[in-house]
Structure formats: C-alpha cells, structure tokens
C-alpha cells in the first residue's frame, strides 16, 4: 500500500478505535461520511483552550481575551491556507447546514435592485443527488421568492446528466447549488465544467463540499465558484463548527443573516449598520473552542498530506468495490470505476433490507449507515427503499474492508440462506 502513509500510526491517534463493540468485537468504523472520529491532538487543542485561554474573543482588553482572539483568528488563517483562500473570506458557522442556509437567507433578504435579489421568474438549479441540506434551503428560498427550482438528473451509473445543462442553467438562473461529492454515491462532480455555463449566465455557484474538503485537496483558487460550505465534524474536528467560504467582494456586500453582537458597526434603537465579512456573518460569541479544534484538525490533515489521504482512501475503495461485487445479489449504487469518485460505497442486496444488514454488521462490530442518507429523492430515483453505506476515512485499513466484505456475506447468509 501507500508507503508515505502509515495507517497504524494514524490509528493510534484515535482513542475510540480501541473500543470493543457488542461484546468483544473490535470497532470497524465505516460511517465517517456521517461524522468522523477525532484525533487526540484535536481534543487536546480544545481542552487547552478551555483550561488556559478561555475568554470571549474580540470582546475585552484583558490577556485571556487577547489570547482567545489570537487562537480563534489563528485557526481562521489555518483554514484559509488549507483552502488557498484569504482569511477574511472564511466565515465560521455551526455546520455546513447553517452555511448553506446562510447563503439562501442572505439572498432572500436582498432587496429589489440588489444584485443578490431573487424574484419570481428567477431560477435556482440543484441536482437529484443533493443532500437535504443542499436541497431544502433552496426549495424554501424558491417558495419565499417565487423563483423556480429545477434540477440535474442522475444517470443509472450515478453520474450527473449534463446533457441539458444549457436548458437548466440559462439567463434566468440566479443560483446553482451542487454537491462536490455525493454522500451516497461517492460520485465527484465536474465542477469547473459546470462552472463555465454558470459564468456564462452570471449566476452564483454554491458548492456543498462536505464530502470533498475532508478527503482530498480542495483549493478555492482553482475552482470557479462563489460559495463553498462544509462541516468540521466530518474532517476530524469537533462537532458544532462549519465553514462558509465566499468571494470576498460578495460576502462584504451581501445582507447579513444572523444579527446580534460583534457584527455591527453602529447601532441605534431604530437600526444598525454592519461590519464587512467575516464578522458580518458571525453574530454572537463564537464557537471558539470548536474553531480552535478545527485549526488543529487542519494541522493534522496537513501533516499527513491530502494527496496521501486521498490515495489511501481510493485504494481501500477499490478493495471494497471489488470485494462487495463478488457477493451474490449485491448491487453497488453509484459508480464502480474509480475515476472522479471518493471513498463512499452504497449498496443493496436482494432479499436483505438495509436495516437488517446494518443491524447484523453492528453485531459484528462494523458501523455503517443504512437508510436514505438525507438524500431521499436520490434513493427513490434508484428504486430502492434504502441503501447500506460504508464510508471511509484515513484511519481505515485493509482489515476494515475485509471485515466489511465478510460481514456482509455472513449477514446475507443469515437472512436469505446460502
């Protein structure tokens, strides 16, 4: 396997991997697409913040407040560097869900005449493979503004059908919101190819990067997009922190979303004026410890190298697809070739409901996710009730994949007989 990547050293940084499950089974954690595990360095960074430097950032001239501010803003710089972005363009939120809602609400708050204003007849474009977090906020924005919601189809191989791109993205289109990598199929979408059409019509391109930023190098400078959202908890960081990156000139001009302390310029009883980004979008005492933890997570990822992480995952993905494909009655839902694809493998087995499969795997210590994976329209499209999903990360090893494949076989035998 990958020589630059010592997975057993990596595993020793994740205390939870020593847990025993349902009796005496070692934990085989294949649910990182839902949330990742955390290395000790991230937990230590958070704890050190609380035990040495805790105070309200940006709100006090005392030493602790100064230190908290430096740690908080230092983490912003780390995240910015990680993405090839400017610090001022990094907005901290609680989650990708908030980040996407932020953009949708901000656009919805723009008044007629503003370039952000959405009106009846305008068009918002999504796809059939969106996570609910990148679908429902746009449904609601469309309802609030009278805009029309249209979407790309997904073909039977789990790829976006781009054949009607210039019908979908036309001069009426104001927003195109797509996922970078599908959390169900593993498909990676050709962003810059789509961006050409988005640019042509002058729409805003919003990228859901929840399943890409944690797994391979994403540089906003190389992506022709306007906004990008992701969550910390899927990339080794604590729960409760997300990121919105946006083009600086857009962020500075957009109407605010959450309002309150620390984002204002002046306030009277009647009205207020607002600071530029990122403060404009960070009302209230921020999730400081979680942001500091995210900074430590970025350090950890950088130390291993995103290239190495991606290669490692792809090798394991190949093993998983190859192994699972041998199982009778098993259908992979999503691309089976490794081109433009990440480490998420969904599947269905004839005669075995995913819930039962998941339960059996759990009994063997294997954690997968079953259900509609917050992408119900996609699951319906594939005409299954639900799927079982194994999603990989940097701490998984070949033994995990072997356990998965043999566990699925064993479960299949249990429910449908040999």
């Amino acid at each position, binding site marked *: 396997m990958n020589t630059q990547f010592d997975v057993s050293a990596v595993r020793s940084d994740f205390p939870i991997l020593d847990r025993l499950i*349902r*009796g005496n089974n070692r934990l085989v954690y294949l649910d990182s697409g839902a949330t990742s595990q955390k290395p000790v360095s991230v937990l230590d960074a958070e704890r050190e913040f609380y035990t040495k430097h805790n105070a309200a950032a940006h709100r006090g001239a005392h030493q602790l407040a100064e230190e908290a501010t430096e740690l908080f803003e230092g983490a912003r710089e780390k995240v910015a560097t990680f993405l090839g972005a400017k610090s001022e363009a990094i907005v901290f939120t609680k989650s990708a869900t908030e980040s996407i809602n932020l953009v949708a609400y901000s656009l919805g708050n723009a008044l007629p005449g503003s370039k952000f204003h959405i009106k009846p007849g305008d068009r918002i474009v999504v796809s059939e493979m969106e996570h609910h977090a990148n679908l429902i906020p746009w449904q609601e924005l469309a309802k609030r503004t009278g805009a029309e919601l249209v979407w790309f189809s997904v073909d039977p191989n789990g790829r976006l059908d781009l054949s009607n791109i210039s019908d979908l993205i036309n001069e009426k289109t104001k927003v195109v919101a797509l996922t970078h990598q599908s959390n169900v199929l593993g498909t990676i979408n050709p962003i810059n190819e789509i961006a050409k059409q988005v640019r042509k019509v002058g729409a805003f391109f919003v990228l859901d990067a929840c399943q890409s930023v944690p797994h391979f190098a994403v540089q906003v400078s190389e992506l022709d997009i306007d906004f990008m959202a992701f969550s910390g908890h899927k990339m080794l960081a604590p729960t409760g922190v997300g990121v919105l990156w946006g083009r600086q000139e857009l962020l500075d001009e957009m109407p605010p979303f959450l309002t309150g302390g620390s984002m204002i310029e002046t306030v009277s009883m009647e009205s207020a004026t607002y600071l530029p980004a990122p403060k404009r979008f960070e009302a209230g005492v921020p999730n400081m410890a979680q942001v500091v933890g995210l900074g430590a997570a970025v350090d950890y990822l950088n130390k291993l190298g995103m290239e190495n992480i991606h290669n490692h995952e792809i090798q394991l993905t190949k093993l998983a697809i190859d192994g699972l494909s041998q199982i009778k009655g098993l259908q992979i839902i999503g691309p089976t070739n490794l081109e433009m694809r990440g480490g998420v493998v969904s599947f269905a087995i004839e005669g075995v*409901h*995913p*819930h*039962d499969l998941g*339960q*059996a795997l759990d*009994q063997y210590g294997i954690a997968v996710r*079953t*259900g*509609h994976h917050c992408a*119900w329209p996609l*699951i319906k499209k594939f005409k299954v*009730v*639900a799927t079982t999903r194994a999603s990989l990360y940097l701490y998984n090893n070949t033994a995990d994949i072997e356990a998965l494949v043999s566990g699925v076989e064993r479960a299949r035998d*249990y*429910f449908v007989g040999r």
Partner: protein
Amino acid sequence: MELDSLYQEVILEHYKRPLNKALSANPLVQVHHINTSCGDEITLNLDMDGEVIKSITWDGVGCSISQASTSVVSDLLSGKTSSEAMALIEEFQVMLQSKGSDLGNEDNLGDGVAFAGVAKFPARVKCALLGWMASKDAISQAVAKINGLSSEEKR
C-alpha cells in the same frame, strides 16, 4: 450470537412467509404509514364484522422486523373486538418501550413476544411498532366510522 436474540426464529419465519400480505378489496378503512427515519412504508386494510375485526391485510416494504411484526399483528388481531385489539396493541407497545425488562405475555401477544428483544435496540423499536401503530390508527378510524354510521342510523 446475540443476533439471534433479536432475530428470533419466529421473526425470520414471519419475514420469509408473511401472513395476510395481500390487500383486501374495498376495505372499510385503509391507512398508510411511513417510518420517516428510514423510509419504510406500509398500507394496511381493516375490515370489521360489527365490533369484531374480520381481517387485517397489508402490503409494504421494510426490514424483517417491521415486516414480521406487521404479519404477527395482522394475524393476532383477527377475530378480536376493537377494544380487545386496542388493549393488545397497548400491551405490545409497553413491552417495546421497556428497554428489555418486560418479556411480554405469550398468552396475550402470541408470536408478538418474539419482539421483546427488539426493545434493547432503541433504533429498531419504531420498526417493530410500524404495523401495530397502523392497526391502531385503522381501528380508531373504523370505530369512529361505525359510531358515526350508527348515530346517523339512530337519527
């Protein structure tokens, strides 16, 4: 292996050969229930003979627990009065919410006691309840319908 304590023989039996899984024509009441956390769905038809349940028939997709449990309830409640049926549903629900402490009374619940083990898996309790909650809903509707009819008849 603990898996067997959840998937008792009788559950797998009902799953593989479900009872009453063919919707009756022109039912008195039809209900449609969804388990929103996973997408499992069932359609359930209820027919009554006065106070007595004549038949419960159903169709749907779901895991072995929800399918088997619906098979069991459809069989168990046939021939019971609506109030007997409601009491049994209540008893089953109590068992499933006991976290494993209530093993169920086989004299009352029949094959239903096979689901006692499910109570230890909180995420699966909803699966086991799907058919029972649909039955409860259907019976309430039927009772309301019959009372409505009879009060109309009285007028």
